[in-house]
């Protein structure tokens, strides 16, 4: 990374992480029609571990501090402890019954309140998406709520200077090198780094660390914009996808099978 000597201040980095079910193979209870979530282990959203790692690497290079923030139920504290084990210095959990049922708009708003309360920052790092929500919308939405610029799908930090950051941003057919002013928000892809495993020492530290808990009262803001009430989208139905129906099955010896398939492909004009 270039630009080392240009950086005269210590960095204040915020990483947004979410706790998600370890598996995405959630099933519907055929009797009640609701989701079965019991007995499924919770982990840090795998894409967010890249965000944590990148934040920690920047801190190690330039000095400063990394704060992990999450909105979720009280048990999400575990995910934040893991973030500390992975190198974050501080952690804040935004938790309140009023936050439940948030869609991406309400989540972004709630996170923006928490981040404002934390004070000033230079860089916010999000994962490119979650494995449960699977939208990738919270990062850019959060930047908009905070009124700061964002760069999505960052695959490399090229350099960091006092007032700006140079990044490689992925596109379908290549990448762009962009220059963003600080403070800004980035969402990072898997290519950006190889997350480390937590050391034993840090695990111990994480176990004892104090996680700050903030509820709706602490955050202030507009109560109509959080949780279910602040969510314009509503799920009205969940169902199993209808399979398309199968056609002809060809059995027999391989020679005949190959011949029949060949004739079919010819018939359908693929040959």
């Amino acid at each position: 990374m270039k630009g080392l000597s240009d950086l005269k201040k210590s960095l204040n980095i915020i990483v947004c992480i979410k706790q998600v079910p370890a598996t995405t193979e959630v099933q519907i209870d055929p009797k009640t029609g609701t989701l079965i979530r019991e007995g499924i282990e919770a982990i840090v959203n795998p894409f967010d571990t890249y965000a944590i790692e990148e934040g920690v690497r920047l801190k190690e290079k330039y000095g400063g501090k990394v704060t992990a923030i999450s909105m979720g139920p009280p048990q999400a504290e575990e995910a934040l402890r893991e973030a500390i084990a992975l190198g974050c210095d501080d952690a804040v959990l935004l938790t309140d019954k009023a936050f439940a049922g948030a869609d991406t708009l309400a989540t972004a708003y709630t996170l923006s309140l928490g981040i404002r309360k934390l004070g000033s920052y230079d860089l916010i790092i999000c994962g490119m998406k979650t494995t449960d929500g699977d939208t990738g919308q919270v990062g850019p939405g959060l930047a908009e709520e905070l009124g700061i610029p964002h760069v999505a799908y960052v695959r490399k930090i090229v350099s960091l200077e006092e007032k700006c950051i140079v990044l490689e941003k992925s596109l379908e057919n290549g990448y762009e090198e962009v220059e963003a002013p600080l403070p800004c928000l980035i969402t990072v892809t898997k290519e950006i780094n190889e997350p480390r495993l937590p050391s034993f020492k840090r695990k111990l530290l994480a176990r004892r660390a104090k996680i700050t808990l903030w509820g709706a009262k602490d955050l202030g803001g507009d109560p109509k914009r959080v949780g279910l009430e602040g969510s314009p989208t509503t799920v009205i139905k969940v169902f199993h996808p209808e399979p398309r129906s199968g056609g002809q099955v060809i059995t027999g010896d391989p020679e005949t099978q190959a011949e029949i398939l060949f004739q079919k492909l010819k018939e359908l004009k693929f040959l």
Partner: protein
Amino acid sequence: MKEIKVIKEKCTGCGACVQACPFGAIEVVEGKARISEDCRLCGACVSSCPYEAIVITGKEEAVDLSEYKGVLVFGEQREGRIEPVVYELIGKGRELADKLGEELSCVVLGYNMKAQAEELLSYGVDKVYLYDHPSLAVFRDDPYTDIIVDLVEKVKPNIFLIGATFIGRSLAPRIASRLKTGLTADCTGLEIDPESRLLLQTRPAFGGNIMATIVCRNRRPQMATVRYKVMKRAEKTSRRGGEVVVMDFNPKKVRDRVKVRKFVKEEVEVSLTEAEVIVSGGKGLGGPEGFKLIKELADLLGGAVGASRAAVDEGWIGYSHQVGLSGKTVRPKLYIACGISGSVQHLAGMGGSDVIVAINKDPSAPIFKVADIGIVGDLYEVLPRLISRIKKYRG
């Protein structure tokens, strides 16, 4: 009418609101915040103020949903070429607009795009809003957001569709947050509910085992992103009467904070999403050499090579070949799945193919439930014979 006010007695001139304002509409003058007419009453400063010194007064005008009419499509372009996904959104958008008895429009931002905008009309678009300016040639989130939000506030579309490209996925949430409306990602189904006339947005959830239908009741526009190759492409029509509306644009009126220094093109070895024929290999290949056979057949058929995630995870082939929920969505005329079991996640990416052929040893493999032509057998015995038969036929 809503009004915004700084309570001078409480304001300390700390500048938190200046930072927070998305529109650069606040300055600190003589130790107090001053709000200019660029203010759009978004309220960002109100929540940012540590001293509760900024208030918005007056009744919030209830959103009159009936004011919002028509379907708007984001006409994304790169290097002056309209992205293929746009034609698919137009195809779907036309269907939705017809059901509602409303207009279909498209917004294009770029430079020298007049001809391309005209061309969109022949796909059944009623109106193309064109912002044509050198500074808009290359996408940047800031100016694109400002311009599109302004347009949406003017034309008030009922539905707004955006392609789930890297650009669309970055832009759409920013716009939705500014408009404080709902946004559904990666929809695979879009329909109008005949009773409520709401947009029913269906997407895979929880790893694709489950589909969820989502609505946005009280906010407008109803926004959704859609991946490439999920909807059917619009056909050229003979219907005429559409128009290109050239919009005024003043670069000074929009923000532009992130600079694009350069674009570096990287060769993508397979254009899976474009291919009309795809031959795919899975875990059943048993090793990387299996892909030589797959490639040979793909080459003979003029197609591309696909893979299941299991094969990619084994390291037998690169991620760019992965088809499915966490890979690419494809919609070829012919999809040949070899040694692929047919998990829901894989089906999520190729279920829209016109003809599906499956070769699998296990007669109970789920892939046979979707295959038009199923071959129960060992791929290592069937494929070489098929390949030599095709070679013989071609001479």
